[in-house]
C-alpha cells in the first residue's frame, strides 16, 4: 500500500517537476548568463603558479558552493535513461548549471576584495544524501575554490 501511494505521488509530481522545475531552470540560466557577462573581465584559470608574483598586493582563497537536487521529472527521465544507457541530458544540464553557479559565487567573493584574477581554480563534487525510494534522484553539493589575486 505504501509503495502504491509512493508510486502515485511520484507520477503526480512528474508534471510539477516538468513545468515548475523547467521554468526555474530557464530563469536560472538567464540569471547565470547575465552575471557571467558582468564578471567576464576577471581572469580565471587553474594554473598553480601565479605569474609575475612581485606585482601581487593581496591574495586570498575564495570559495563558492551550492547544493542542488533533481526534481521528480528529471529523476524520472534519469531512471528511464538508466534502462537504455546513453547521455543523460537532464542530469547533465543540472550539474552544469550548479557548477556555473558555484563558480559565479566564488568570483563574486573575489571581486569583494577587489581581485582581477583567480588562480588555481578547483571544482569539488559530493553526493550528500541518497534519497530513499526515488530512482535516479540525486542531492549533490558542488564546490569551486581558487586563489584571488589583487595586483598593484
Amino acid at each position, binding site marked *: 500500500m505504501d509503495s502504491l501511494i509512493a508510486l502515485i505521488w511520484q507520477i503526480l*509530481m512528474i508534471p*510539477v*517537476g516538468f513545468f*515548475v*522545475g523547467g521554468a*526555474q*531552470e530557464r530563469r*536560472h540560466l538567464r540569471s547565470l548568463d547575465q552575471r557571467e557577462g558582468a564578471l567576464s573581465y576577471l581572469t580565471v584559470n587553474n594554473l*598553480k*603558479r*601565479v605569474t609575475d*608574483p*612581485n*606585482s*601581487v*598586493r*593581496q*591574495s*586570498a*582563497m575564495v*570559495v563558492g*558552493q*551550492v*547544493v*542542488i*537536487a*533533481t*526534481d*521528480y*521529472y*528529471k529523476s524520472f527521465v534519469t531512471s528511464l535513461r538508466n534502462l537504455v544507457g546513453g547521455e543523460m541530458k537532464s542530469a547533465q544540464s*543540472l550539474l552544469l548549471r*550548479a557548477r556555473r*553557479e558555484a563558480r559565479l559565487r566564488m568570483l563574486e567573493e573575489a571581486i569583494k*576584495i577587489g581581485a582581477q584574477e583567480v*588562480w*588555481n581554480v*578547483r571544482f*569539488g563534487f*559530493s*553526493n*550528500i*544524501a*541518497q*534519497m530513499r525510494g526515488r530512482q535516479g*534522484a540525486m*542531492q549533490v*553539493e558542488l*564546490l569551486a*575554490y*581558487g*586563489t584571488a*589575486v589583487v595586483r598593484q
Partner: protein
Amino acid sequence: MFVVNTEMVPGRQITEMLGLVQGNTIRAKHVGRDIAASLKNLVGGELKGYTELLTEARREALDRMIAQAEQLGADAVVNVRFTTSSVAGGAAELYAYGTAVRLDHDTTTEPTHG
C-alpha cells in the same frame, strides 16, 4: 594569516615548512531544514538551507585549520584543499587541509584573512 590554494603565496618567499594542518567538522542537517528541503525537492533546484549549512560548516573547518596553523606559528597556509563526504544518516563531513609555512618579512603583500 594568508590562506591560498596555490603552491606558494604570490609575491612572498617561503622560508620554512611547518607541515600539514587540517580542520574538519561533521554536520547533521536538522529536522526543520530537512522538511524544507524535502518540499523543495518536489521542484528541484537549489536547496538553500543545505547550501547555508555547508557554507557555515566549511568556514568552521577552515577556522580550525587556521587555528592549528597559528599554533605552529605559521604566516600562511598554502595549497589548501577541500573534501566533503557523506557519513551515515544524512550527515556530511567537511574537511580542509593545507601546508602551514613561514614567510620572509616582506610587507608589500598584505594578507586578507584575520
